[in-house]
């Protein structure tokens, strides 16, 4: 079916490279913590609780980046049938679920003191929660199909359908919320951020992107390694 595969990179080298990137990301994370606690000013109304913003927002960024790339890789897979795209989509979905977990745990920790509630059915919260569930379903499907060719096609279809589901969920929960308005005026978006805060956020976003790349590269290398080992006896 697909073109004969020439692994340009050895899996072990990919894993090493991914781990190195992740290590840089973790070091960057230490820097983000230091910046957030010492460099960025304390927010006047929210106090120290606002510091979680520097972890929560970049985690959300990485989650959405991961899931969008799964959608794009899925659509391209059905077109090109390149196994690398499937491997990348799988790695990205898994990493996205991890970042999604960070986003969905840091969010309520912040919301409890600021909004007075752990969870609210706000449009953005609901959307990300369903995205999270959708990708857990995606990973469950991958785990349940044994034939790699079939697994790639099935998960690509789910990836494409999922990408198109996002605007629908957003629209429906948005309509739902505007008809039943909630007493929450405070929104996490702050249009005019002090430069120290903005810089800290940008550094953090960069760090989380590096972490994403590191994790995905490692995961991709592991998947490749696993595939090569499974094929091992036949190839030899």
């Amino acid at each position: 079916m697909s073109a004969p595969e020439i692994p340009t990179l050895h899996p072990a080298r990919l894993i090493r490279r991914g781990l190195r990137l992740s290590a840089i990301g973790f070091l960057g994370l230490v820097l983000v913590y230091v910046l957030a606690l010492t460099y960025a000013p304390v927010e006047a109304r929210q106090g120290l609780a606002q510091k979680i913003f520097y972890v929560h927002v970049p985690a959300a960024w990485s989650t959405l980046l991961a899931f969008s790339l799964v959608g794009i890789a899925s659509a391209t897979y059905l077109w090109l049938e390149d196994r690398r795209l499937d491997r990348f989509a799988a790695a990205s979905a898994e990493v996205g679920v991890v970042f999604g977990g960070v986003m969905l745990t840091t969010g309520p920790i912040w919301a409890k003191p600021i909004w007075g509630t752990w969870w609210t059915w706000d449009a953005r919260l609901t959307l990300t929660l369903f995205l999270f569930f959708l990708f857990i379903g995606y990973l469950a499907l991958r785990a349940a199909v044994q034939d790699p060719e079939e697994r790639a096609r099935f998960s690509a279809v789910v990836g494409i359908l999922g990408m198109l589901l996002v605007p629908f969920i957003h629209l429906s929960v948005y309509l739902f919320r505007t008809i039943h308005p909630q007493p929450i005026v405070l929104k996490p978006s702050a249009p005019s951020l002090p430069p120290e805060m903005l810089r800290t956020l940008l550094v953090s976003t960069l760090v989380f992107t590096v972490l994403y790349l590191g994790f995905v590269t490692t995961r991709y290398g592991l998947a490749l390694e696993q595939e090569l080992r499974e094929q091992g006896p036949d190839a030899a």
Partner: protein
Amino acid sequence: MPRSLDLVFAVAGKDIRAELRSRTALLTAMVFAALVLVIFNFARDPTAVSSATIAPSVLWVTFALAAIVAMNRAFTVERENGAMDGMLLAPIPREAVFFGKLLANLAFVGAVELVTLPLFTLFFNLSVWSILPGLLGVMALATIGFVAVGTIFGAMAVRTRFAELLLPVLLLPFMVPPLIGAVQVTTRLLADRPLSEMVGWLRLLGLYDIVFVTLCTLTFSSVVDE
């Protein structure tokens, strides 16, 4: 074009005929829906929540659960004796197979919904005669979309190890927009609100149907072809 329509009806007819001969799955799904309704009646505090407030949600959650149970069966029957392979070997375009399966699933889910509706009005003591056309319309509009997605996921799930569990996990997120829309429209119908308050939701439901029926038709061959 008429020829492909014949093929669609042939595929759907085969499914419906097979179902009508045994009737076990259909009856079981109907009993399941009735049981869900009964259980919901006990799951609320009648002194705190009036039945009219909770009725639309109960109706649609029941429909959703019954639809999942009903759709689980659509491709399980094809797996036995390699029936699916036989159908795929036949000179039928994949789109016709998909539409046939979709039609059969719609007939199946629709039958369950039509049996559930009178029970629902009975248990919740509602009068729906005046809004029946609107109610049937929104039922059709909401059901088409998620049954289309359910048909393609059913074809996938049946080839996996735990199909009965995987289908709901995959399908429920896709049921969210149609369910929210349908509950909103049903609430307004029951409260005799003007149509202008529902147009936004009806558009959303219609758009969902168009997008997902098209998309599922296009991707179906990637799911069934070896």
